[in-house]
Structure formats: C-alpha cells, structure tokens
C-alpha cells in the first residue's frame, strides 16, 4: 500500500470471513379453515393460510409489499371463540384456530362493506369491485339516490398525476407507500375524522407546493384508480383508453445502476404508463420519478418545423 492511498476508516478484518448463521427454522402452526387442516410457518397470517388452501379471500386495503392496516374489513373471517369477526390480512395464525371463511356472518359483513363502499365512493375504475360485488350479491343502490357520497372534483395540480378523491376508499395504501413502507417522503397523510376523513397534504396545499417527489408509488398501490397517471386520465377522458389494445413489456430502467424492472404499457405505438412488478426483488413495485415518468425520450421525436 503506498503512503498516498487513503487509510480505510474501518479496519479490514483479517482471517476468514465468518459464515452467516443458518436461517432460523420457523415452527409450523396448524389450524383449521373451513374444515380443512392447514400448516403454515409461525408468523403467517390467516390470509396466508387460506391462500395456501386455495381459498380466495377478497382484499382491498391489503398489499403484499405494505404493512397490513386492516381497515377495509372485506377480508374478515369467523374465528371460533371470538366475539367479533377478525381480519384475515393481519391476524396471525395460532395453533388450533378454527376458522370459517364463508359463513352467513362473514358473507353479510363482506356484502355490507362492499355496499357501504360502492354507495359512497365511485368504484367505476376499481378492477376488483365488480367481481366481489357479484360474489356477495352487493346492491349499493338500496341506500337510495340521496345516500351521502365523497364526490368532489378531481385535483389536477401537476402534469404527472391526477388525484380523484371521489374514488378514494381510504385504504391508507398511498399514505403507507409515501411514508415508512416505501418512499419516506410523507407528503400525504390522513386528515379529518369520520366520514370526512380524507387523504391530504398539509392544509390541502397543491402537490406542487408539498413534499411530493413524484415517484408515483402511491399510484402504483391505489386499488381504485383514485390516483392515476395523467396520461391514463387524459386518455380515459378522451375515450381512447383501451386496455385490450395494450401490451406490457418488462425491461430494465435505463437511468441509474440500481436496475429496476419497468413494465412498459404501450397502446397504439405509444407508451401510456410505466409500472413495476410487485414481486420484483429490486423495486417491490416502487420506482422513482425518472423510471416512472422519464420515458418520452424513447418515442421518436417529430421533425421540428423549420
């Protein structure tokens, strides 16, 4: 080592590199769901166990990449010995639990939750809703045409996203993605209380005035289309949005060296939006402003007028 080379701040250890300890063996927990026995690793949720059995449990506020907040209550199941129904997404499996996922009580609560949501929120762009509503026979019309809703004009205060809170079911996902679960920017939070609770920046200041860094990770997790890329919003407004004419292509982001996987959504020869797969080990579905929005350079520039 020459005298000019900087000394390392942390001394380099001599000798062989110690081996990582073997992964701790997780004990298995056995429980019964709908009469079937199932065994899952300790720490798994009831939802995990139900999925292992192939039982399809509806979820709205749950996402694999975020901490469960169990607020939508559409995943509730009946646990023997419990006074109330329990949320499958967050309740840990315990040995000997006996669970019903399709009892009369469960079906009623799920139906009411869907009716409550669909009668107060515009769910027209929520992909999961029609299936769930059909499955549980939800009829949101029965509260009448005067039922109070959260209808309000969409917020369009920047060129990248539209926030249409008349479609917001308050699942907290965007707040989690903007906060400790992904981005740590904290531009938005839940404000107000009760039926008036809503997602907001401080004093509802425009996004351009807030801490937002336009990573678009909130859009990535929104289950109802309340948060939408401006490109998609404009096309929907113009009536040109057509998912059946779209292709999805996975590629690697061209910007920095992190190597995020991008899913490029293309329609009629143009990129219409960019997402990232949730199960991708680098991104877990999250991107930054460049990967998410900086794609225009790909498209052939029209010749400039002289």
């Amino acid at each position, binding site marked *: 080592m020459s005298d000019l080379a900087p000394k390392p701040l942390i001394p380099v250890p001599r000798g062989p590199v110690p081996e990582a300890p073997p992964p701790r063996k997780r004990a298995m927990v056995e429980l019964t769901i709908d009469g079937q026995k199932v065994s899952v690793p300790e720490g798994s949720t009831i939802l995990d166990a139900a999925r292992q059995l192939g039982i399809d449990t509806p979820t709205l506020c749950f996402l694999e990449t975020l901490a469960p907040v169990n*607020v939508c*209550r559409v995943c509730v199941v009946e646990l023997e010995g419990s006074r*109330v129904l329990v*949320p499958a997404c967050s309740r840990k499996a315990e040995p000997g639990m006996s669970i019903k996922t399709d009892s009369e009580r469960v079906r009623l*609560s799920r139906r009411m939750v869907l009716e409550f949501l669909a009668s107060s929120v515009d769910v027209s762009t929520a992909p999961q809703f029609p299936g769930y509503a059909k499955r549980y026979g939800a009829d949101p019309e029965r509260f009448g045409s005067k039922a109070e809703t959260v209808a309000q004009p969409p917020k369009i205060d920047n060129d990248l996203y539209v926030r249409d809170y008349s479609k917001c079911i308050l699942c907290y996902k965007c707040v989690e993605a903007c906060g400790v679960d992904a981005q740590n920017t*904290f531009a938005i939070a839940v404000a107000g209380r*009760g039926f008036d*609770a809503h997602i907001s920046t401080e004093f509802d200041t425009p996004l351009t005035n807030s*801490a937002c860094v336009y990573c678009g990770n909130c859009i990535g997790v929104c289950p109802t289309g309340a948060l939408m890329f401006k490109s998609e919003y404009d096309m929907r407004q113009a009536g040109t949005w057509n998912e059946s004419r779209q292709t999805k292509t996975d590629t690697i982001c061209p910007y920095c060296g992190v190597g995020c996987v991008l899913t490029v959504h293309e329609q009629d020869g143009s990129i219409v939006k960019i997402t990232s797969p949730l199960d991708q080990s680098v991104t877990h579905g999250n991107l930054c402003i460049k990967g998410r929005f900086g794609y225009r350079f790909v498209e052939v520039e029209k010749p400039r007028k002289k």
Partner: protein
Amino acid sequence: MDIHFTADQPSAEEKAAVDQELGAPETGWDGGQRHVASDGRVAFGGHDAGSHRHKLLPALHAVQEHIGWISPGAINYISQRLGLPPAEVYGVASFYQLFSLTKRPPVVAHVCEDIACMTRGSEEVCRKLENKLGPAGKPCMGGKAAWLRSPCLGLCERAPAALVSAAGKSPRERVLAPATADGIEELLREGIDGKLPAESDALSMKASIPQAGSANLVLLRRLGKSSATSLDEYRKSDGYEALRKAIEIGPEAVVREVIDSKLLGRGGAAFPTGKKWEALLNQRKRGRPHYVICNADESEPGTFKDRVVMEGDPFAVLEGMTIAALATGAKKGYIYLRGEYPFAAERLAHAISAARKAGLLGENILGRGLNFDIELRRGAGAYICGEETALFNSIEGYRGEPRNKPPFPTQAGLFRQPTSVNNVETLINVPEIIRMGGTAYAKIGTTNSAGYRLWCVCGHVARPGVYETPFGGTLRELIQMAGGVAGNGRLQAVLLGGAAGAFVTPKELDVPLTFEGTRAIGATLGSGVVMLFDDSVDLKKILLRIARFFRDETCGQCVPCRVGVVRQQETLERLIAQKPLGTTETEVRMLREMGQAMRDASICGLGQTASSALESALNRWSIFS
C-alpha cells in the same frame, strides 16, 4: 428524511406559545436561530430526531389556547420543532374537535346539545342563541366570539351545560351549568373584555353528589367534606394509608388482593383489573418499561362520575395509580383527561405537584425505594380517544385511531410496551381494597359484581347527580334514591350505559343493576349512566341524536363504522320523516343488517356498539310502525 415546509411562517406569538410548551429550540435544525459554527452543516437524525412525537398534542394545545386557532405557519413551526412531516401534523390536528385549523374568534362557547341536555332545555338555549348571536359556528359580537354546538360536556347533573374558552396570553376556561342564553352571552362578553376570572369555577359538590356527607359512603366519603386541594386533609381521612400497606406487602400480594376482590373495570368493558396487573407483573423480568394509564377521557354521553371524583378527590386517583404502579412495575404513568374538563385538569395538576413535594410521587416514594411519576395529558375533543388503543396513539402523537387487537395493551400498549389502562373509578376502588383486603371487598355486592359502583343519574330525575351504592340494588331503588321521575313524572324509558348502551322500559325497573343482571335483559351497565326520559320526550329524536353523535365521533378508519354510522343516520331520518325507501319493514331490516355488520366487522368498540341503543329501542318498542 428531509422535511419539506410550505412558505408559511409562524408569527412571534405562535412561536412563543410553542416554545413555552417545548422549551427554546436548541439548534437551527429544530427551529432556532441558525449558527453554522455550532450547528454544523449536517443534521444528525437517528432515533433522537424522531423521539419527540409524543409532545405533539401538548404543542398543538399550546397554540390553540394562546392564539385561538392553528395556522399553517404554526403547523410548520411545530413540525420543525418536533422533526415531523407537516402533512402528518396537519392530519393529527384535524382529528380533534377542539382544534380549529381555520381562523376563528378567540372566545368560543361550546354549548352542549347532547341527549342529557336535550331533556333539560338545551334546544331552547340554542334557539335563543341563534336569535341573539346568529347561527352556530359563525363569528358574532363584532367578530370577537363564536358559539358552537357540542357533544356531551359531562356536566349532565346540572344540564344544560356550556363551556367557554378564551384564547390569549393567559388562556381562560369557564363552565356554565345550568346554562342560559343570557349567561352564555355574558361569559362571552367577559371573555372578550379579558375579564374571565383566573381562578377556576368552584362547583358545589353538594349539587353533584346529593348523598354527600352521608355516613354510608365509601368511594365518595371525602367529596364535599374534606378539601380537594389539601394533601393534609386527604391524609387525615385515611389517605395514603393503602399505599403504605401496599409497599409493606409487596407487588405480588397487591395483585393477589385485587384479583381476590373480583374488581371489574368500571369504564365499560368490565375486564378484571387484577388480571391486567398480573399480566404486567409477570413480564417484569423482561426489562421493558411498563406504563400505567388512568383513562379519564370520560366522553360517553351522560357520564360525569369521573369528572366529579377528579374534581373532589384528586389524591385518591393518584394513590390508586401509585398502587397500580407498584403492582405492575411501572415507573411512569399518564392521566389522559378529556379536553372539556378544565377544572378537573387544574385540580389534578395541583394534586400531582403537591404529591411530588411531599415525596409521594417521584423518586423514592415514602422513602421506600418506589419510583413513579405521573404526567397529565389533555385530550382535545375526541370520544374515540377513550378507547384504550386510540388513547395510546393520541399520547404518542398519532391520530387517535384504535389499533387492532391482538396484541393487547398488556403485551404491546403505550409505545408498544406492556401497559395497564384503568378507569378513574376503578382506580379509586383500589385503596379501599388494599385497606379492607380483597376477600372482604369481594363480599360486598353480588357474587359476580363485587364492590361499590358510581351511577350517573341524569335526565328527567328529581335529584340528578353521582350516586354510590354497593352492587345489587335495582334500577327502581336507584331512581327512588334520586327522588323519582321528574319532568312530567311519567317515565317513558331509561337509557343504561350511555349512547353505547341500551334503552329499557318502565316495566324493567326491577332489573338488578349488576353486570349479570343487565346482561340478562340484553342491556349493559357501561359507564354507569342511568338517564331517564319522561313521556313528553320524542324518543325518535333521542335516537337520531345518538346516531348523529356516532357519526361525528367515529374516527373513520374502518369501513363498516365510517360509512355504517352515516347510513344508519340516513335511514333513521327517512323513517322519522315517514319517507322510507320501500316499506318501513325493509328499512328496519336494513338497520338490523347494518348493526350486525358494524358489530361484527368494526375494529373497535365504537363501531361495535354504535347501533346498540337503536337496536335496543327497536327490540322494545315498535317505534316506526
């Protein structure tokens, strides 16, 4: 995290109010004057930077009390002082009803229009105020004051009630009960002129406790007899005898006595107190900090017993908490007091400082090596914060949204550490249990409901107030004790347990007022509310007010409760207007279904009981057919 602020700057007064609460900022990084030489060019974060969040609610209170509203500049300054994102601070501030985030006159009257006050003319008071001062919520008296309609203020024994707060350099709060429109206007005027007296209201104990001075009283024996501000008088009437004995016999024995006493929590959930304490005691060796919390966020409409106890016998609450701390190994305790109780706040603050001076709180209590101190926290107008896990979030500086259970508070409570939450009334039973012994206490009352109970008797009753009885008497006996039915004298219904409770009919007056007795008729004791309605009352209006109460007070976190309480209110409104969708039967069936879903699928007790009073009325009367 790099905190981003909007351009809004705090005023000098706002800064002073926050600094008075939090102390002066230490560096430029947390809101002080920037000195590059001493502050450096890099902010060091880590755990320390984010460890001040629990000071958020007191800081917001400081601004509200001194300025009268919380401006964007003030939010920015508080965020900077505590290292929090402004969006989250805004989210927390907008959760509480007593905080105003829009400019509001500094002098405000909160006028109760809840069910107990409705039986005593609150509608008339509000109507007169509308004529005199204009509509609620609008500035009046030259823009210097405003009046607001308020949920229950916990002054039901002297209904109708009002609370006037005047913001300024030396903030003032006064209650007025019974309130008249003229009286409220006068207090507002005094507030505007800066003439509200600094010393707090002296509420007559005799008016709140008709039994005061009676020789049979145990829990209430000191109230109205010995001074609530004198530690000496408290000690002369057996005060701190129980703590001495508790230290003598040690934590294990204290827990055993409380288990033997069969004491059940008096806040509404009726959980065995000894079991809670035992769970904490058993975790002592794990080295985690333990907490005891006195739940004084009494907000159930019609409930005022805890307020009366705290105003009249604050040292008993402290002694009960100190024994709880000894038994559970807690070094720190919180009293979470509802924001609408200024007088109780003052009495408790005085008692805490007197106890500290006398070596009964702090290090080495009574010279016996026990370390325990209490911090008083004031809520800011949120019924939901009486739910224990919402209360934790509120103290920690988050929105008062309940957490899903499990984990239970005894495993992961305040700051995710083992915590025991006990109601005020539960805690004042503890010194009695220690003094007389658990087995002797368990013999009082019935087998399944041991000990003494405080009742909040209000509404159309001759002598409203807090009553104490051993468990076992009937509802009829209690009503007789309170002088019988008032109003027009013809009883229509009794609401047991408050808005989250149940209605019973005059035919059910022989129900024993015990946990098991009320359960047998599909009712609950809840927080000890016994509210009478004569037959001039339109019960539909009462039901609608209860529905509106839950709509205003739900935190909005989970869907069944957030939307369910709105749909419930809408359905009731249609039924009352006799404009049902479909038939009355389909509407009633829909109410039942909503009730079932709220009871089954809501996160916390608020949603789970939001339909219970309504459903109890549907079960007992055919109100809508």
